[in-house]
């Protein structure tokens, strides 16, 4: 099992809802982020091109819950762990705050919580997914660009929050939280070479990004 989030970057509008929703749901300290949206570009569409022949995309970045996480390897106490659901979690009661996992992360997404003296990062909302809910950043994505699920069941089977029309008469939060759309049914078609990852230095990032008709920046 490998729980992941896949983001359709052609749908992402850079609204930062994922970032704000994450901070709200997980009490992320001021100045720290478990999820951040970067704007990549504007970059020329072709070498030497000038404005308006430029393009850009928004890139939500957080822990990539790697298949072979370096942060887990360097942790002296086993506080950083690769779980059965494929996520990387931190047992705060074991963390000694040595910060070697912070150094070992290629994406710089871990930080020291100075109040608690332990390391924090995205948990993929383990408190929510354990109850069958979606991670908060997926649930509150303003463009329905993020999809969550077990990658081993196929990228097309990842799920996002449902359309309001699908709620029926029940407009409650519970109904909304249970209604889903399948990635394969919902987003525009894409080919395998349009599925990208953040740079891999041996850690094998499990999250992926779909980007069509634009140049992906940053090697795989």
């Amino acid at each position, binding site marked *: 099992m490998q729980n992941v989030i896949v983001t359709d970057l052609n749908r992402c509008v850079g609204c930062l809802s994922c970032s704000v929703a994450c901070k709200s749901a997980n009490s992320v300290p001021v100045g720290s982020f478990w999820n951040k949206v970067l704007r990549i570009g504007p970059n020329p569409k072709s070498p030497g091109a000038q404005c308006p022949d430029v393009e850009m995309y928004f890139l939500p970045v957080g822990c990539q819950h790697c298949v072979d996480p370096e942060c887990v390897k360097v942790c*002296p106490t086993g506080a950083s762990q690769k779980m059965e659901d494929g996520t990387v979690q931190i047992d705060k009661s074991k963390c000694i705050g040595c910060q070697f996992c912070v150094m070992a992360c290629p994406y710089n997404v871990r930080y020291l919580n100075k109040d608690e003296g332990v390391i924090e990062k995205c948990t993929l909302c383990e408190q929510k997914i354990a109850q069958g809910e979606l991670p908060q950043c997926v649930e509150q994505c303003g463009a329905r660009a993020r999809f969550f699920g077990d990658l081993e069941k196929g990228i097309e089977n990842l799920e996002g929050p449902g359309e309001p029309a699908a709620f029926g008469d029940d407009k409650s939060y519970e109904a909304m939280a249970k209604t889903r759309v399948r990635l394969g049914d919902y987003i525009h078609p894409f080919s395998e070479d349009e599925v990208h990852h953040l740079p891999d230095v041996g*850690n094998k990032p499990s999250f992926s990004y779909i980007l069509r008709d634009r140049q992906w920046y940053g090697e795989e």
Partner: protein
Amino acid sequence: MELQWELILFTTFIAWSAGLFGAQAFAAAFGQAKKAQLISWIAAALLLVIGGVAVFLHLQHWERIFNGFGHLTSGITQELIAIVVFAVVAIVYLIFMKRSEDGASVPKWLAWLAVALSAVLVIVMAHSYMMSARPAWDSFIWVAYVLGNSLVLGPATLAVIAALKGETDFKQIGLWVFVGALAGLVFALIYAVFTQMVGSSFTEVGLYFDPVHPTKAITDINAVIGGQALLLWLGAVVVGAALPAAAAFVARRKGDANSWKLWGIVIIITALIGAIVMRVVFYNLGLSVFMFY
């Protein structure tokens, strides 16, 4: 990456401690610097303690180290094992030394074991910073550089202690200090060149913008590397590696105890400056491969 002063001091003092213990054991293997043996052992132990205190100050929850500590793939666990083995061998060394007829000799096998374990400790410690996530750190050249710190600081400290304790024969010790300082210079030069060439190892995304840091400039890795040039070349290479080698050359030519007292201290001070400055550069260039978060 922000400077981790506790780790800068830890790696410097451990390299110094292991260098000194290794140097005294090396001298013992050749029957040299007998008057300096006990003081050198005490000095190496003190340096080890200072390094240990520094690293404990770095840990946010040191009281939890026995709560599951021992994950073997972790560089910190490997460091702890190496330090414990090093300390045990140092104690055995002290016992054999005190029981010897002249109070300053150890069996050859123990002397060489101490030399080897001193090197292993420095290598394991430096290796724990080799991370594929940080291109400027991810090379055995860094390990060689830290070993170079030990090779210059250890023999130079032994020479100063020997001079203070009234040793008169510096022919061999002088050669070791000079060779150690030369090795330190060569490794510093190679690591300095390596750090200047890592720019292409970082991910490039062209223009970018981080909405939560709207006033933060785009990181230009070549400018970051260029910004360290003065510290690197003047501080770490010229002052921290070339001067110790020059001082060792002068002290060796003069060859008397007074020269080793003076120039030996010059070597130690300049090599320490170099070791600390290089670690500052090491952290300043320790950007992650995807540096935009």
